[in-house]
């Protein structure tokens, strides 16, 4: 039973990464199945622009799924994801063609997300308030601010920026890969990995010398950043800002993360799962279109697919209590 020590010594990182796929294979199979089905129904998917266009549809959902998953790993949850995406889009659309310029606008978007995320984190962590109500309140406040900045859809994004991110080249896919890698890097830092311990067992983690509060607050800040970046992308994709564009992302981000196996009690789940969950939700829309489903069939099928994706891998465990 015992592994030769030398083997384990040489490479620990990759086996650890591999072991995190536990419980996700079912979902991965479903997602790959849908990708193949999509490619079969729409062969144009297998071209550079096909991939580009599809990832553009998926990209914002992928980002908010990550944003939600991070918070769920801390044992929290956010109902402010959607409004924060809207705010990101609105800030981008009002700054990038104005005096701050494109770079200034991107910086403003990023700082908005980091700042709001950090403040919510401090409120939740330091004042010991339940995350779900704090973020519910934050949703109203953030949504209000977005309406103040841009009372009705408008603003503009530099055309080159839209063409860059949401043109015919899969730049968004590249950005997504970079973001996923950055997350891997963050998880490879002591603070990043501590997120799991801080979420599942804050007392034990504190006693092990983990800076629990810091780990959680940083998670909120990163989450905020991801949301406004999703907003920035939506603004680029649409070429403008809309103060209510993000609303649907709140529920979808939760659905994607939970679909991906991220648990509510903290410390359970993986980012790859959340990404796979968001990919499935996004793929489903296009696949159902090509299958020619009527709206009624779309709703019914959507319900069945997401239940099925979660239930199928569980079937073998039906009778177990423990």
């Amino acid at each position, binding site marked *: 039973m015992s592994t030769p020590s030398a083997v384990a010594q040489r490479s620990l990182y990759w086996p650890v990464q591999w072991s995190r796929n536990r419980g996700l294979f079912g979902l991965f199979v479903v997602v790959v199945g849908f990708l193949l089905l999509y490619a079969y129904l729409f062969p144009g998917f297998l071209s550079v622009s096909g991939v580009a266009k599809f990832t553009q549809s998926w990209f*914002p959902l992928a980002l908010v799924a990550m944003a939600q998953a991070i918070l769920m790993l801390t044992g929290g949850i956010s109902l402010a994801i959607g409004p924060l995406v809207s705010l990101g889009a609105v800030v981008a659309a009002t700054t990038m063609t104005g005096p701050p310029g494109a770079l200034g606008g991107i910086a403003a978007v990023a700082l908005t997300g980091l700042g709001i995320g950090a403040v919510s984190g401090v409120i939740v962590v330091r004042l010991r308030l339940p995350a779900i109500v704090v973020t519910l309140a934050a949703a109203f406040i953030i949504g209000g601010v977005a309406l103040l900045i841009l009372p009705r859809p408008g603003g503009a994004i530099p055309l080159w920026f*839209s063409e860059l991110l949401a043109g015919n080249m899969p730049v968004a896919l590249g950005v997504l890969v970079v973001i996923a890698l950055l997350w891997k890097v963050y998880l490879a830092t002591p603070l990043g990995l501590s997120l799991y311990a801080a979420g599942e067992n804050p007392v034990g983690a504190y006693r092990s010398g983990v800076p629990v509060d810091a780990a959680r607050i940083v998670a909120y800040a990163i989450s905020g950043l991801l949301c406004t970046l999703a907003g920035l992308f939506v603004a680029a994709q649409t070429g403008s800002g809309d103060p209510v564009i993000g609303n649907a992302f709140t529920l979808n981000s939760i659905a994607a993360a939970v679909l991906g196996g991220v648990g509510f009690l903290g410390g359970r789940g993986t980012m790859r799962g959340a990404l796979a969950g968001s990919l499935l939700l996004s793929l489903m829309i296009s696949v159902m279109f090509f299958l020619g489903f009527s709206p009624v069939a779309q709703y019914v099928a959507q319900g069945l697919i997401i239940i099925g994706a979660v239930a199928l891998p569980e079937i073998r465990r039906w009778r177990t209590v423990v």
Partner: protein
Amino acid sequence: QANAAAKCITGDRKPPYTLGWANIYSVPTWMKQTEGTITSMVEELKKEGLVDELVITDAQGDANTQIQQIQSMIDADVDAILLIAGSSTAPARVIEAACAKGIAVINFDSLVDTDQVTAKINTDSNKWGDTAAKWLIEQLGGKGKILVLNGPAGVSVSEDRRAGANEALAANPGIEILAETNTAYNVAPAQEAVTSLLFAHPEIDGVLSLGGALSAGAILAMDKQGRPMVPITGENARQFLELWKDKGLTSWATMQPNWLGALAAYAAVKALQGEDVPAFIEVPLPIIDNSNIDEYLARAADFPADGYIYSPYDQKLFDELIAQ
């Protein structure tokens, strides 16, 4: 005549056509009625051999999903896209891409801020607000305290109707706006908001309601509190029209006809066939008031209880509108 009369039309698409309707949300009764007008028009066109298929997508209220679905329609190379936009800005780029591929794009009801479409079809939301405000001001003799009921904030239809009312209100300083609300275009939230406002304001002379369900909610609120009915504006919602008659109100309503959908399907086919379709088809706003409300109510039984009683339409009417 050149085969490419209208924008986005390249002239190389031959009937029968495949039409795609990118709807924003299928579930509300309003949308079901609209869908009904579209499908019956498509049936007629199918008989004429002009259309072979209608594909409908439902974005479940999410403008981002709608973009993805429009992209799918482009990928599937439909011949025309009919669009009710979930955001006045968001679908602009993808719609331009559709237009560039020679797909006829007919945007109706909720419009997009781009001119890269074959045609837009709508009533004039600004005029909606303006006429409503003028009617109410006239009813009040230019003096009185009013409530203003708006649709949801940040949505262009509701912002446009409200903006349309501004000029008339500003010109009549005798009109005092006690309070404004923003709610979804639904009865219950409007009733809830108006009830609270009635308690806060013992004296109210009129209600400028910029949506049919909002008017119904306001009447229910006033009725429940036993407050005297005041002049109120509205729209052709069946519940509102019935309450109007029931409570013996003096009211005014206009109509955003559901058959804009049928007109869009018709216009798409016309454009694809190379006919000249104007970039903007303005559908006139009819007036419903105490003189003609009975005509509308006479047909009430043909419409869902929570639906809208729209005026009759046929291809002849559409031809006239397109020719204008």
